[in-house]
């Protein structure tokens, strides 16, 4: 659709916001577009993460009495086909995203459709007056319009797997490095939200490592990526890897001192030790069922 999906941060910011939004918040009007543009532009970062979905004109809050009247009229005349929430029903399209509604302010572009019908598309004409249509418009415009559409009917839980099968998978695969009674004891107490737990075991330390969005693994201590640099003299410099590109590597030693070393092709020799490498390689092997089963088991490790 738009370029916005280039932007990891943008998408996550939007969904994060969407997740937090309550039904009531969704109905609140947004910041007036004049200010919103400015605020959002400032929030937009650089590179791929730049920008985020910004405020489009939403309708100002309508007269509550008009919205109530409109809701009643809509319920009687429109909701069978268009759904009680105007998002589509028995044969009738979603009105929230319809051009004639998006362009409308007070019923003026909705009225011709209602009063004349769209017989070719199966919509009869309705004998409603301008005031009634204005009320219906007020009701439809009370819904927030957003492509980053907040979920309304959320599933109760993400735990859908078989804990027993998950335990068996744990024994054959995870137990090479982990123990349910050792390092993972109380895991589900440390991370009580199952989705955060799932993201955390998939990639401890969260999606911040090259992924995007938080993985909820903050409760886990993940050993850092370390590096061994072997200088031409044979001297070895070891420590936490601070940064690396094709030209430099920065190593923090045990005393917390950082040292940046020039790289020229394969000289000096640089070996990276990523403690999460096994987790990364396993990503290529999991089935979704295995993931769900393992999570169903791990949520029992209270």
């Amino acid at each position, binding site marked *: *659709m*738009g*370029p*916005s999906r*280039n932007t*990891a941060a*943008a998408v996550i910011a*939007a*969904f994060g916001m*969407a*997740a937090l939004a309550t039904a009531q918040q969704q109905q609140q009007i947004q910041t007036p*577009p*004049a200010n*919103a*543009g400015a605020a*959002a*532009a*400032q929030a937009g970062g*650089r590179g*791929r993460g730049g920008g985020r979905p*910004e*405020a*489009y004109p939403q309708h100002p809050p309508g007269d509550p009495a008009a919205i109530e009247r409109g809701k009643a009229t809509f319920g009687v005349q429109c909701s069978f086909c268009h*759904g009680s929430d105007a998002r589509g029903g028995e044969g009738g*399209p*979603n009105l*929230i*995203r319809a051009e004639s509604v*998006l*362009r409308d302010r007070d019923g003026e572009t909705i009225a011709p459709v209602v009063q004349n019908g769209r017989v*070719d598309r199966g919509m009869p004409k309705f004998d409603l007056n301008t005031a009634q249509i204005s009320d219906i418009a007020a009701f439809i415009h009370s819904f927030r319009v*957003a*492509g980053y*559409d907040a979920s*309304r*009917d959320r*599933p109760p839980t*993400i735990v*859908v797997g078989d804990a027993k099968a998950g335990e068996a998978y744990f024994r054959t695969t995870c137990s090479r490095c982990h123990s349910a009674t050792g390092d993972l004891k109380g895991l589900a107490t440390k991370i009580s939200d199952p*989705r955060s737990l*799932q993201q955390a075991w*998939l*990639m401890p330390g969260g*999606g911040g*490592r*090259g*992924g*995007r969005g938080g*993985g909820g693994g903050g409760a886990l201590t993940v050993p850092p990526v370390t590096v061994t640099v072997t200088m031409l003299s044979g001297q070895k410099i070891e420590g936490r890897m601070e*940064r*690396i*590109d*094709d*030209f430099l590597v920065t190593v923090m030693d045990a005393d917390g001192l950082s040292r940046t070393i020039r790289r020229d*092709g394969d000289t000096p020799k640089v070996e990276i030790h990523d403690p999460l490498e096994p987790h*990364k390689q396993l990503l*290529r092997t*999991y089935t*979704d069922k295995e993931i769900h089963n393992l*999570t169903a088991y791990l949520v029992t490790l209270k």
Partner: protein
Amino acid sequence: MTVKTLIASASLYLIPAMFPGNAGAQGLSSADLLKPLANDWPTYSGDYSGKRYSHLTQVNQTNVKNLTLAWTARMTAGAGNAGGGGGGRGGGGGGAPTIIGGEGTADASAGGGNANIRASILEVDGILYLDTPDNAWAVDARDGRTLWHYVWKTKGGTHIGNRGLGMWGNWLYMETPDDYLVCLDARTGKERWHVEIANFSQQYFSTMAPIVVGNHILVGTGDDLDEPGYLQSLDPETGALQWKWYSVPMKKGDPGLETWSGVDAASHGGGNVWIPGSYDPETHLYITGTGNPSPAYTGQSRGEGVNLYTCAMVAVNVDTGKMAWYYQTSPHDTHDWDSAQTPVMVDADFNGKPRKLLVTASRNGYFFTLDRVTGEHLVTGKFSDTVNWAKGLNANGQPVREPAKDYDIGGALVSPNNGGATNWPPPSFSPDTGLFYVPTSDNYSMYYLTETDPRGAMGLGGKEEVGVATLGSYLTAIDYKTGTVAWQHKYPAATGGGGNGILTTAGRLLFAGDHGGNLVAYDPANGKILWHSRIGQVSNAPETYMLDGHQYILVAAEGSLFAFTLY
């Protein structure tokens, strides 16, 4: 002057009064735009082919180690922060005029901040023309001095980026986030007119670099609601509409409707056209990629069909606005993997015979070689080995989606993530090596279904994507004959995004930004590193131009322009 009235009424094909074919020395003629990339950079990809391959050789493998900074200039967006647009090192920016336009009231850049330069920058007769959302500049290509700065006051909307300006004669064309096409006088920055190109109430936003072909300005827009995508052609003198091509069926009888559940779904089916395409003067075909179908994820309302002509390469005749052929790279997409990557036109041997080809690496992880005259499929390759959303290829070489990988209440582990195995950053093709170059990434996300309403959600809603990991980011070279990876340079840190586009030159060089904030010159034959300079995160594709007998390499990083040359 506003000519909104014109666009409202003009659905007729308007014959232009004249071509600016022999405009003054400062003018850019339609004929100039037909030439292969040489001393100037007059259109988005340098020339119409999309190859981003320059014939300049002054900077080459033997001397690139001496490449050095000629000038740098910091660009500051917004009227309040302008002061001539920042002087850069050379200073002297003070006094450059700032021109204000716009239909809205907000200065989106109020408060300052670095200009977000994603754009391809035009270079014509020693002057650079660039833009960011709501801002355009003319900059002296010799020293980075700002000549004028134009600021558009906005109504709001998605300010995600802007891909660049279009030029015809002495006129520049800029899309604004709130859906206007603005025509500026390149000599002064003064506005000639602006026209509305999409309806802001429908949440369209506009980022594309206008492409000028003959007497057509081709413009597209983006949208994250469920509104239909379209490409339109406007008259360069007046902005009047010449034709409009919808990427989805809009009414009964339109071709492709059988691939949707019905007219309402199709006409709310997305397929936005937001990245510049390429143009073949011999066939008069403008070939571009279309965006994802909509709603993007909870696509059940779209029906089980392939949802034409979303996520496709489409060839549109610039004279008539009619589609000649299409090839869908993601049939019935369910991950918002737009096919919005500038396709590259290559004239090269295929199976021992010269052939007019089109190559593209898609966000979904697959590479395609097509015949660009007929749209015939020739090659499919997979360039990210983590990609797991397809069961395989069908007889026409298209990936066949695995529905279980759409999303799951318990989460579906999918590669690539929404950002894709690649994205809009421009690829390049070098005729010297016969290789296609593209920034790529192996990455995974979990996709959770969060909307159980059987009607689904709108736009990009209804699911939550949570990133898992990026296993590797690469500069990738692909053989168009086989679709296989010829070589990859793996960046040492596996963070996403290795640069924002690629340039190749006849000097046997490949320029690209890396994840560490370096502009790097590589050997396009094998990826060997030849030169680098750390300038900060590179935000656009490197370009090159020749001026006063010197070849310049131009790139943007962290709100500044950097021009390198040899002395």
